[in-house]
């Protein structure tokens, strides 16, 4: 059967047009802008823009703050990504256990951070992290530990941001993992139990292999998400102290929307795009080889 052209156009047309207007055209415009010196003078009068080739990219490679931002982002990624997967997988497994009471209550509680406004969260966290009156340092003091000046100490600022990021991301991923867990057929566990596998062995040899696709999806999405780290450091520390929490997107935002160097900012966006593309591609490849 041949689908009439008109039906194709009516059904696929609108989303394609929207995709063009809101995704593809802006992407190409920003790629073009990254080869120009679009700056504050060009905002109002476009005739002030001139084509400068790869100059933005060359300057970017020589920009120490960009490298700092890149390292900070990778630091956050390398620490936060495994933590997110481990925490959300274990919480999901615990919630999904047969004997757990109040399953939905826990699901909702863990999910709440994901739907709460980051601005509100950051204000509350800034209070909790306060060195003198904060909840966290009060708690540590019960054990005789003198907590650090979380947001004021360059060594502790990034761990603070990571705590917030992981706490916020866990809820969403718990939902994904719970969905994955519910798809694992019961007979696998029954068979394992008959073979005398302990609870932990069941988790290791039945649950995790069955969850491969979900784990893969969660990893890819969190990697993409964490490379675009922005809101949390923006609200919590604004990149400080001593640029210890400056992320790539935060640096991009600063260049583009505080200094109005949109050409330079676009080149940062493209480098980030290429990085995300490359990392996702590698992950896809690794998975293909595995299967």
């Amino acid at each position: 059967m041949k689908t009439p052209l008109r039906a194709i156009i009516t059904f696929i047309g609108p989303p394609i047009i929207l995709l063009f207007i809101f995704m593809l055209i802006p992407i190409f415009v920003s790629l073009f802008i990254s080869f120009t010196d679009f700056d504050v003078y060009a905002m109002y009068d476009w005739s002030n823009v001139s084509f400068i080739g790869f100059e933005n990219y060359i300057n970017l490679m020589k920009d120490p703050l960009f490298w700092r931002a890149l390292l900070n982002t990778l630091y956050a990624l390398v620490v936060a990504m495994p933590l997110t997967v481990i925490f959300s997988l274990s919480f999901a497994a615990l919630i999904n256990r047969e004997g757990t009471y109040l399953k939905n209550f826990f699901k909702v509680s863990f999910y709440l951070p994901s739907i709460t406004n980051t601005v509100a969260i950051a204000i509350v966290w800034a209070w909790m992290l306060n060195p003198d009156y904060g909840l966290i340092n009060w708690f540590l003091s019960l054990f005789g530990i003198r907590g650090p000046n979380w947001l004021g100490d360059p060594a502790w600022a990034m761990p603070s941001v990571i705590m917030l990021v992981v706490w916020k991301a866990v809820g969403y991923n718990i939902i994904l993992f719970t969905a994955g867990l519910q798809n694992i057929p019961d007979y696998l566990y029954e068979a394992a139990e008959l073979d005398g596998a302990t609870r932990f062995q069941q988790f290791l040899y039945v649950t995790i292999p069955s969850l491969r696709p979900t784990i893969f999806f969660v990893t890819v999405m969190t990697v993409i998400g964490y490379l675009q780290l922005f809101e949390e450091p923006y609200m919590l520390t604004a990149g400080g102290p001593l640029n210890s929490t400056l992320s790539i997107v935060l640096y991009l935002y600063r260049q583009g929307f505080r200094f109005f160097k949109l050409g330079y900012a676009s080149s940062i966006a493209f480098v980030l795009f290429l990085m995300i593309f490359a990392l996702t591609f590698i992950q896809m490849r690794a998975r293909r080889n595995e299967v």
Partner: protein
Amino acid sequence: MKRLVGVLSIFLILVASTFGATKITVWAMGEEAKSLDKLAQLFMQEYPEYEVNVQAIPWANAYDKILTGIAGRQVPDVAQMGTTWMAPFGSMGAFEDLTPYIQKSEIVKPENFFEGAWQTGTVDGNQLGIPWYVDTRALYYRTDLLSEVGYDHAPQNWDELYDAAKKLTEKGKYGITLYQPQDNYQVLMPFVWQNGGDIVDSNGKVIVDQPEFVEAFAYYTRFFTEKLAPIGGGGNLFQDFASGDTPMFFSGPWMVTMIRDQVPQIKGKWDVALMPQKKTRTSFMGGSDLVIFRDSKNKEGAWKFIEFLSRPDIQVKWYQIVSALPSVQAAWDDPILQQDPMIKVFGEQLNDAKAPVNIPQFQEISVSMDRRVEEAIYGRKTPEQAAKDLKNDIEKILR
């Protein structure tokens, strides 16, 4: 028939009132926007040929809203513009140069305003904004705690400020609050100006490595390296002030009402004083300007409205409505402004208050200053070294 005439005439009046009056659209932010309608009503009584339409924008969205407005050419006739935003938006070329209007005006004359306030409207040598209301920083201090360490008056100069902070730290926790994670220049620059320094001189030469700047920078840094001032994070300014953890800080006039409301328990135990003296007592000048957009179709009306808001009697009225300090000097002669002794201190401080020069690259300079100041107060670099690096940064930015 009579009814038809009645309906028709009502209709005609409606048409006349919507099309007859020239519309002036105004963007204003925060509390100001909510109350500006009251002044707009007064304006329309005096000038019935205009209809003023005030649109309120929350401060949090204002920056983006103005930016997209300029980029998309969807702008109002008049807008309130925070003084620190004059440089970035002004240099885009979106604001009308007001010089020809000022030359013809009876009300808006540079000499009627505080000098520092007038400068906030100057961008790259053009007068793009008229100061609407101002704020400046002064010293808030706990009279009781300072008298315990032998000060029956506010610290009058740099030595006294340092000495008082040191003694207060020995007795309590900290002596003073001096840190601001973003736009830290607002805290540092008053010290530099008090010492006769600046960021660039009148010839555009970067002078942050000159002794005036470096000395002020080193003085400022010492409060942190000797732990007289808290660094980073920080707590609640009101609570710390009330508990005596930080018995001194610099801030603007809005804090007067806020302290009275938030921590009434320290009533009578605190006061406001002029900036400490080195060569001068210069403070930081902030507030809001009024601008006309170049794309406005009704610049005459927009200018009339700005003139109206610059009249001394209206400025006093505005102070009564939202407690914003008048930018027009004559308004300060009004007894209403002389009533509150603390507000009077700010009035006096306004005579010696400055704003940093409005150049397109100022945001970049400001971020670079935040970085170098942090490097110094965290002890990673000496103030001399940090000032040298700052000079390189700024020269690179200005090139």
